[in-house]
């Protein structure tokens, strides 16, 4: 799972909004993320992951 995670993460970094550290500027509260997408008329990208 780790390898798949890294490939997906790399692709997401290439395509998503980034913060000052070059990391994806994630919304951490899904309810807010979906509301923000609705208010802004944008698509949401839900990234389900687990750190085991």
């Amino acid at each position, binding site marked *: 799972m780790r390898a798949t995670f890294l490939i997906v993460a790399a*692709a*997401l970094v290439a395509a998503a909004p980034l*913060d000052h550290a070059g990391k994806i500027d994630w919304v951490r509260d899904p309810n807010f993320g979906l509301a*923000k997408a609705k208010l802004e008329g944008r*698509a949401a990208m839900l990234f*389900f992951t687990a750190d085991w």
Partner: protein
Amino acid sequence: MAAATGNVVPVYVDCTSSESFSDLKSKYDVKGYPTVIYLDPEGKQIKEMGSREASAVTGEINGVAKKFPGRPTFWMNSAKGAATYAKAAKKKVAVYVAKEDADPIKVTQTLSKNLADRKTKLAWTWELGTAKALEARQVESAPAVVIYEVGEKETDLKMLGKVQGDDPKLLNEGIDEILKNAKK
């Protein structure tokens, strides 16, 4: 490329704890990790990530973003994002710490109506008022607004003040007072 594809709202759903987000996992039939689901602005599933190839995933995100170009709001994705913007725009950061059962649509619409120019004077972001978040933001209860000044680095946030409660008048007065004191 980040600028071109900033039109998706990236949501991190941490399912490390098996009970976390069970409603979302069930709704979108998530069976393994990582799983990426794309939704339209109304929350309807458009597609699931079809490829694990980095370039193909990038293309998928670009395609989805292109369909929904969107419009800006005053909300930033995170405190880090708000700090980056605030530093560049010489503004202060406002973190809205929401009640755990708050409806983000209702709250943001109410705030949008009541905050007047405080919406643009500050770089706003939203955090769910979990026990951990309340402790980190040094507030006793949600809802609350905590205002920070950004230091040399975007990670250096200095608290200027906080306002608790959801009375619009008190909220605005509290924010104004904090900003006024910050000027002194």
